[in-house]
């Protein structure tokens, strides 16, 4: 079984003491904690958020830390949330689980959960206590996180750009292809996306989804064609049976969507076709 984050009430970090009860947020109340961004968390399979404050240094007065512990449905959802938030990672060498830490926030992936330790005052002296808290939250080394990115061609991929896409909000970071869940991910199917830097500042974006069913992939291609037709900023290319669905975007970039069995691959910003 994948180790998960320790429950917040059991925490007893070396230098931090729980202050008050944990506050729990459900999918229906998450917006009360993260107004702006809750939808993306939910797409990844959000189950519950527990928030608790800690004081540091006994009677040290105002010094405090906060822990936000996101319980996700599965390790893939936790990885998706972590990758959306981690940026360029700056880990502490003493902390084993995948994480990044700054003066104000520590973000950690632990099995099927993600923890954020916040140091609201930005007091550098509290960073060791943040790391301590994180260590207590994930005491056993978790299983290696899942690696869903095999669907993305490795050549030329910027690894730091990889993301997991489980709905339209996640997709929007890479592409706008109509309104609603055009890729019909529904939070249950997942796709992966990444960037491929090219010459002269060009970037190729790829989104790949394995639907496990060729019919489902074909259905999404039709929905995509509808979306391209409806978008005033996209110009659909000619339809040719057996060829990819093609269009150009507002910046005259060449784009296509193709299916290979159950796998849909969307490419945005393809190199210009030779004349």
């Amino acid at each position, binding site marked *: 079984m994948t180790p998960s984050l320790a429950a917040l009430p059991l925490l007893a970090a070396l230098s931090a003491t729980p202050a008050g009860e944990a506050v729990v947020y459900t999918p229906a109340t998450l*917006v009360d904690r993260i107004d702006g961004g809750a939808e993306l968390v939910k797409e990844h399979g959000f189950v519950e958020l527990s928030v608790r404050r800690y004081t540091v240094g006994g009677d040290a007065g105002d010094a405090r830390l906060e822990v936000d512990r996101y319980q996700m449905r599965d390790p893939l959802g936790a990885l998706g949330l972590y990758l959306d938030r981690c940026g360029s990672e700056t880990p502490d060498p003493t902390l084993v689980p995948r994480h990044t830490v700054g003066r104000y926030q520590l973000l950690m992936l632990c099995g099927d959960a993600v923890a954020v330790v916040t140091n609201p005052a*930005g007091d550098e002296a509290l960073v060791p206590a943040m790391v301590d808290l994180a260590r207590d939250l994930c005491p056993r080394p978790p299983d290696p996180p899942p690696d869903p990115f095999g669907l993305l061609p490795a050549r030329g991929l910027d690894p730091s750009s990889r993301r997991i896409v489980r709905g339209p909000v996640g997709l929007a970071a890479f592409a706008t292809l109509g309104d609603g869940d055009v890729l019909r991910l529904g939070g249950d199917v997942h796709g992966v996306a990444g960037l491929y830097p090219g010459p002269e500042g060009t970037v190729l974006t790829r989104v790949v989804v394995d639907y496990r069913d060729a019919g489902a992939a074909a259905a999404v291609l039709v929905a995509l*064609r509808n979306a391209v037709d409806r978008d005033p900023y996209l110009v659909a290319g000619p339809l040719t049976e057996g060829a990819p669905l093609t269009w150009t975007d507002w910046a005259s970039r060449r784009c296509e969507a193709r299916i290979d069995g159950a796998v849909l691959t969307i490419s945005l910003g393809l190199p210009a076709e030779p004349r």
Partner: protein
Amino acid sequence: MVPREVMAVRDDRRTMDDRWSRRDVIRGLAAGAASAPVVLGAPSRSWAQEPPAEVRTNLDQFTAVPRGPHAIPGPWPGRVVQVTDPACLTGGAIDAPTVAAMLRTALESLAGMDPGELFGRLFTANDLVGIKVNPVGPPLIAVHTEVVDALIGWLTAGGLPRDHIVIWDRFDTMLAEAGFVPERFPGVRIEGLQTSGDDDRPAVDGQGNHVSAERFDPEFYYLAEGVPGRGVPGYDSDEAYLEQHVFAGDRSYFGKLVTRELTRIINVGPFKNTGNGVSMATKNLGYGVMCNTGRLHRPLFFRVNTEVLAAPPVRDKLVLNVLDAIYAQYEGGPMLSEAHVVEHHALYVATDPIALDTIGHGQMVAMRKARGVPVNEHPRYTSYLHDAEALGLGVADPARIEHVVLP
């Protein structure tokens, strides 16, 4: 590859949609609930597949009111001044004198005149001046108290009494968390348009009325017809929505502070993103001057930023926009995400909020590209700025914006 069925329905979208519905019925029956909402035509998930309907608002009522003498974009449309000084930030501490000097330099450059003279151009000593701050994401990306200190210093030097200044935002508790408390700003009024309430002081009374309801103007509202604050996805219940948003109909009432009290507004926003767009000048007011906004995010989002700025109490009183960009967050907003925050060491000023957001958006995109962060530049994330230009609220065409970078 394009399957044969796509080819066959190329010119008959309605027929094709109908066919999809029938197929979805079958798939829904076979696969469970995943596609059922589409089948039934009554989506229960927040990411339903139907495109949003066109929403009727009362923008026409706003634009029918003749513009006031101070209406945006003000005396310097399309002009944005950015002043950068690394000395404003040392080891995480903000240097207030440097920030004050940056503001002075920015104002001089914007107006081509001494800040004292500029005060006389924009204000009188009798004005009640509201400084709209953004308290989300302290201590990095919330508006910093030192920036507001600098503005108060300028205003009082021009002759405005301290008790003619109101630091305000929509929520009282968030103001306090960001350091905007009376003891920090003696003599200055600090006001949230509404209270958030807590366990000891519920925001909604036993009759279902929000305790802050009286603070909103029943005669001035933003209408979004058919978009009520009831049943909004993401809220535990309609009661929970009411607690946060005061009213739950299809009208968002403006704060009385804005419509009846303030005579001038200074808009101080952060430098941060919200999804693929920005939460800088226009969003700080678009979602900050009125209640019942939770219902607007999904169907209207950026459109609100344009249309609320066209409302006379905002359009005719907003005389200056400032971006606190001592830190800048290019991803993960509107909440704080330290992993995406950079020390930017800058202040921006403009009388034109549209030009300011246009410049900010471009710089936010550039920051993302420089760091390999995914970028989606679909025009829908900036079209609201062009809509605002069409309404005469500012300049969105980069070719007509003068971006002055100092030093």
